[in-house]
C-alpha cells in the first residue's frame, strides 16, 4: 500500500531523509483506494519504504539537530553568548558513508550513478560564496571536481566534448562506463528563483560523499596517491617564485592542483608504462569480424589518447583556461598561460618551442612565425574528430565552421551535414584537398544506388532479359527479311566475368529470394520498414539540396560582396 507523508518528524527532514536514502515518491495505481476516497493529487510513498527508512540511524541525528537548533535559538534569545558558543561547539554531525555503501553495494554501481554526482559538484563548485549554500560545501565540491579532472587527465579517458549554449558537455570512458557530465560556463550564474536550493543541497551532500569514495577508488586503481599530490620530479614543474601572489599557503595546494598543468604523484613510479595488448582469442566467422572491428576501434582510441602529444600550447588570457587546459592535458599536450592569469604556468609566450597559440580575439600584436594562431574551437573539434584537423579553417579572424555535436549518431539514411561528411573523409585518411561538394554528391549517389538495390533489385534482371529478347527478335527479323542468309563464323569474344559483379548479383538474388519466401505478415512489416527508410533518404536528400542551395546563395553573396 501507499502512505501519505505524515510522520512525527517534519516534512522537511522527511524529504531530506528520502533523498539521502534513495526513496522516491510513488504513483499509486488506484488513487481513490489509498487516499480515503478522494482523488485529489497528493504525494505518496510506499509504506514498506517508510518503515525501512525509520531504521536509519541518521534519523536520531536529525532529531539531535532539531534539539540543537532549539537550544541555540534559546541561547540567542537570552543573549547568553557563552552559552551560544558552548552549544555551537557541540553541534551534532553525521556521516553518510554507510548510506553510500548500502545504496551502492559494488563500485560499478556507484560508477554508473556518477553522472549526477559530477554534474552537481561541478555546478556547486561554480557558485559564488554568497550564502546560497554553505561555503564549505562549495569548497568540497571544488576539491572533488579538481580531483576528478586530474583523474581523467591521468587516465586519458576523455572521449567527447560539446560546447553548447548552456554549458560544456564532456564524456569520458571510465572502466568501460560512459560518463557524461555538464559544466556551466564560468561567471554565467543568475540564480533562478524557482529552484529549491535545499533539495539541491541535500542531493549534493550525498553526491559529494559518493564522488569522494569513487575518486579514491579510481586513484588507487591507477596507483596514484590520494589525496592527489603533484609529481615533484616531473619536468614540467611550475615556477616557484610567484606562488605567493595568488593564494595563501593553505589554499595554494588546491589552486596548483586545479591549474591542471602538472602531473600527479604515483605510488609506484611510472617508469615503464606498459602498452596493454588486447588479448587475442581464437574465433571464427562472424566473431572474427566483430573482433576486427573492435581491434580497429581500440587502435583508434589509442591514437586519440595521444592526439596532442608533442604539441605545445599557449593559452591567451581571453580563452576559457580551465576547460582548454583540461582538454589539452587529457590528450597529452603541454599547456601554459600567462603567469598573471593563474598559478601553475610552465613557460612564457616567448618560448620558441610553442606550436599552437590559442587565441580568441580579432588580432594580435606580435606574431611568431613558427607557431599557429588558432581559435579555441579547433581543439574541441579535433577531440571530437579524433584526428588533428587542418588548422586553416580555424585561423585568426576566419569564420569558423560549425561546431557539431559529437553526441549525435546518424543512422543509415539520416541527413548528415556536409561538415561531418568532410570530417569522416578525413578520418578515413583521404586528402583534405577534396572538394566538399564532390564528397556530398558521392554520398548521395551511394545512397541512391543502395536505394535502387533495395527496392528494384529484380527489375535489373528483367531489363537484361528484355534486352536478350530484343536481340533475338532482331535476328529473327533479319532472318525473315534477308533471305540470303550470310552465315558466318566469327571468333568468339571472351566474356570477361566480373567477379565482383557476379558476387553482387548473387547477393541480390539471394535477397530477392528471401523476400519472396517471406510470410505475408513479415512481408508487410518489411515493406513498412523499407518505406520508412526510403522516406528518410528522401528527406535527407531534400535537406542536402536545400543546404546546397543555401551554400550557393551564400557564395553568390560573397562574390557580390567581393566585387
Amino acid at each position, binding site marked *: 500500500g501507499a502512505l501519505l507523508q505524515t510522520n512525527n518528524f517534519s516534512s522537511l527532514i522527511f524529504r531530506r531523509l528520502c*533523498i539521502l*536514502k*534513495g526513496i522516491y515518491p*510513488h504513483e499509486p495505481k488506484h488513487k481513490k483506494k489509498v487516499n480515503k476516497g478522494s482523488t485529489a*493529487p*497528493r504525494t*505518496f510513498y510506499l509504506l*514498506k*519504504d517508510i518503515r*525501512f527508512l525509520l*531504521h536509519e540511524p541518521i534519523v536520531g541525528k536529525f532529531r539531535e539537530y532539531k534539539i540543537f537548533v532549539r537550544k541555540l535559538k534559546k541561547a540567542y534569545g537570552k543573549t547568553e553568548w557563552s552559552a551560544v558558543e558552548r552549544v555551537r561547539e557541540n553541534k551534532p*554531525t*553525521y*556521516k*553518510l558513508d*554507510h548510506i553510500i*555503501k548500502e*545504496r551502492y553495494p559494488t563500485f560499478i554501481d556507484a560508477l554508473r*550513478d556518477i*553522472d549526477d554526482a559530477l554534474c*552537481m559538484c561541478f*555546478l556547486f563548485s561554480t557558485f559564488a560564496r554568497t550564502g546560497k549554500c*554553505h561555503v*564549505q560545501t562549495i569548497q568540497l565540491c571544488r576539491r572533488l571536481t579538481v580531483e576528478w579532472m586530474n583523474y581523467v587527465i591521468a587516465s586519458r579517458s576523455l572521449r567527447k566534448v*560539446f*560546447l*553548447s*549554449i*548552456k*554549458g560544456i*558537455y564532456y564524456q569520458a570512458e571510465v572502466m568501460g562506463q560512459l560518463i*557524461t*557530465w*555538464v559544466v*556551466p*560556463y564560468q561567471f*554565467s550564474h543568475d540564480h*533562478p*528563483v*524557482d*529552484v*529549491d536550493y535545499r*533539495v539541491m543541497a541535500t542531493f549534493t*551532500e550525498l553526491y*559529494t*560523499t559518493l564522488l569522494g569514495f569513487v*575518486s*579514491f*577508488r579510481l586513484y588507487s586503481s591507477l596507483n596514484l596517491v590520494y589525496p592527489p599530490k603533484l609529481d615533484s620530479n616531473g619536468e614540467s614543474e611550475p615556477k616557484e617564485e610567484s606562488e605567493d601572489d595568488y593564494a595563501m599557503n593553505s589554499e595554494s595546494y588546491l589552486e596548483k592542483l586545479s591549474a591542471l598543468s602538472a602531473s600527479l604523484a604515483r605510488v609506484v613510479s611510472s617508469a615503464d608504462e606498459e602498452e596493454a595488448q588486447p588479448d587475442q582469442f581464437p574465433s571464427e566467422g562472424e566473431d572474427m569480424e566483430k573482433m576486427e572491428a573492435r581491434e580497429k576501434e581500440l587502435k583508434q582510441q589509442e591514437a586519440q589518447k595521444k592526439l596532442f602529444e608533442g604539441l605545445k600550447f599557449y593559452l591567451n588570457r*581571453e580563452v576559457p583556461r580551465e576547460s582548454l587546459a583540461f582538454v589539452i592535458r587529457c590528450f597529452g599536450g603541454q599547456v601554459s598561460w600567462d603567469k598573471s592569469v593563474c598559478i601553475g604556468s610552465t613557460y612564457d609566450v616567448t618560448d620558441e618551442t610553442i606550436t599552437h597559440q590559442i587565441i*580568441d*580575439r580579432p588580432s594580435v600584436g606580435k606574431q611568431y612565425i613558427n607557431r599557429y594562431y588558432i581559435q579555441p574551437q579547433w581543439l574541441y573539434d579535433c577531440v571530437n574528430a579524433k584526428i588533428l584537423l587542418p588548422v586553416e579553417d580555424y585561423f585568426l579572424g576566419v569564420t*569558423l565552421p*560549425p*561546431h*557539431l*555535436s559529437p*553526441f*549525435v549518431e546518424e543512422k543509415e539514411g539520416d541527413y548528415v551535414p556536409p*561538415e561531418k561528411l568532410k570530417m569522416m573523409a578525413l578520418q578515413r585518411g583521404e586528402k583534405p584537398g577534396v572538394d566538399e561538394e564532390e564528397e556530398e554528391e558521392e554520398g548521395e549517389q551511394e545512397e541512391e544506388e543502395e536505394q535502387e538495390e533495395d527496392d528494384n533489385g529484380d527489375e535489373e534482371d528483367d531489363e537484361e532479359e528484355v534486352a536478350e529478347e530484343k536481340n533475338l527478335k532482331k535476328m529473327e527479323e533479319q532472318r525473315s527479311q534477308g533471305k540470303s542468309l550470310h552465315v558466318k563464323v566469327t571468333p568468339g569474344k571472351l566474356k570477361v566475368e566480373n567477379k565482383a559483379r557476379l558476387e553482387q548479383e548473387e547477393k541480390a538474388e539471394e535477397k530477392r529470394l528471401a523476400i519472396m519466401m517471406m510470410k505475408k505478415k513479415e512481408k508487410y512489416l518489411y515493406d513498412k520498414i523499407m518505406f520508412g527508410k526510403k522516406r528518410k533518404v528522401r528527406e535527407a536528400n531534400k535537406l542536402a539540396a536545400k543546404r546546397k542551395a543555401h551554400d550557393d546563395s551564400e557564395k553568390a553573396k560573397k562574390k557580390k560582396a567581393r566585387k
Partner: protein
Amino acid sequence: MAAARRLKRVAISQPGFLTLNPKVTPTDLVSSRRKRVNKNKKKNWNKYSDVQDVEEFLEDVRHQERTTGGLLCEKSDDSLFFLDVGQPKKVEEKEAAEPVKGKKRKGKSSRPLRIDLILQHDSLVAPPKDVLAYQKPNAKKLRRTAERAEKLAAKGVVPRSKKRLLNRTVVDRTSKKTETEANNNPERDFYDIWGQETKDLGEPWYLQQTRKKLVKRPEKLNEKPSVLPAVEVIAPGGSYNPDFFSHQELLREAHEVELKKKKVEDKLERQLAYNKADTATEETILREQVEGLVEESEEEEEKDAPKEDGEEVAVGAIAVADKKTERQRKREKAEKIKEQQRLTERRQTEQQQQLFQLRSIKTSIKQQEETTQVRQKRRKAKEEAQKAQPRRLGKLKFQPQDMEVQLSDELAGSLRQLKPEGSVLMDRFKSLQKRNLIEPRERAKFKRRLKVKYVEKRAFKEIS
C-alpha cells in the same frame, strides 16, 4: 529626646547656671519633688544615675588627643607656647612676591580644594594597628606540614591528590572531533569503502538486538524510477556555433512548443469569453421584474391537469388485482412446460448446427485472439512510453523547462562573445523531477504572521 531632656535637666541643676528668665530660679525649674526610684535594678542605674560629668571629661580628653595628639597637661611648655615677636618680615615678603604675578597665581591654583580638605584625615590619633597584617593564624601548623611535604618529596613519595590527577585517563578531544566531523568539511578523508570488509563488531544476534545492525535494503529500492539518462545532451542545434540546419530544427521545435502554449491560452480565453448579446438591456430587466405576474392564471390551469391523470392511473393499478381461476392456472402451467420444451429443442438443433459452423467459429475465435493480442501490444507499448514520462507525484504536474534557444542573430561568432543561455542549475533540478526522483512543488510562500499596516509619516503628510 529623652536623653536631651535629661541633659537639660542636669545642666539646670548645676550650681551657677544662669537662666534667661531672671524671675525663675533654677531650683524652681527642677521640680522640688525628687523622683524616687529603686536603685536595686540595673535598669534604673542606667536611667537615673548622672554620668554627665564623666562623659564630658572623657569627651574633652578625646578632643585633646584628636587635635593635639595627647593630653595638654602632659605636654611640655615649649610645645604649647611660643614667643610672639610681631610680624616684621611679612611686608617685605609681600613686596617681593608682588612683581611675580605668575607665582602668586600658581600658589593659588596649587592650594588644595576645600572639598579635599574636608575629607582629609585630621585626627592626630594614630589609627589602631591591624594585628592580622603582621600575624598569620596557624602559621606554625602550616610550616610544619610544608616541611613534611618537602621531606616526602625528597623521598619521592607523591601526595595523594597529585596521584589522583596523574591516574586520571586523559580524554582525547581531538579524536572526538574527527569522529564528529561534518560531512561537508572540505578537508575530509575518504577511504576504500568497497574494498574493505565490514568489521565484525560482535555476534549478529547481539547487533540485531542492540539495533546496531543495519536493516537490509529492499531490492526494489535499487531500481531507478525512470529509464531516462541522468544527463540529456542538448540537441545539436544547441551548439554555440551550430550547423545551419540543426539550428533551424531546434528553432522549429521551440516554435512548436510556443504554438502549443499559445493554443492553450487561446482556448482558455475562448472559454472565458461571453456572448455580448446576452447582456441585460432595459427591456430584459423589465421582463424579469414582471415575470410571473402577468401569466399566472394560465400556468395554474396547466399544472392542475396532469395531477388528475396521475390519480386515475394509481387507482386503476390497485383495482386490477383479481383472482385466477383453476382453469387459468392449469393452462398457464401447460404453456410454461411447452415453452421450456421448445427452448431445449431449439438449443439441441443449434448445437447440431454448430458442428457445421466449425470453420466460422474458428475464425471468430482467431479474430478475438488477434484483437486481444493487438490490445496487449498496444498496452505494452504505452507502458514503455510511459516509463520515460514523468509521473504525477504531487499536487503539481511536471512542467518541462523552457527550451534553450538562441535566435540566429543572437548566436555568437566566437567563444569569447558567447552569452550562455539557460541555467545548468535549472536543468539539473528539472532533470531530477523528470526522472521521478523528487515531486514537483510550488515554492514555499512567505507567510506573514501579523498584518501589515501602512501609515504615512507625519513629515510626509504635511507635504502631501
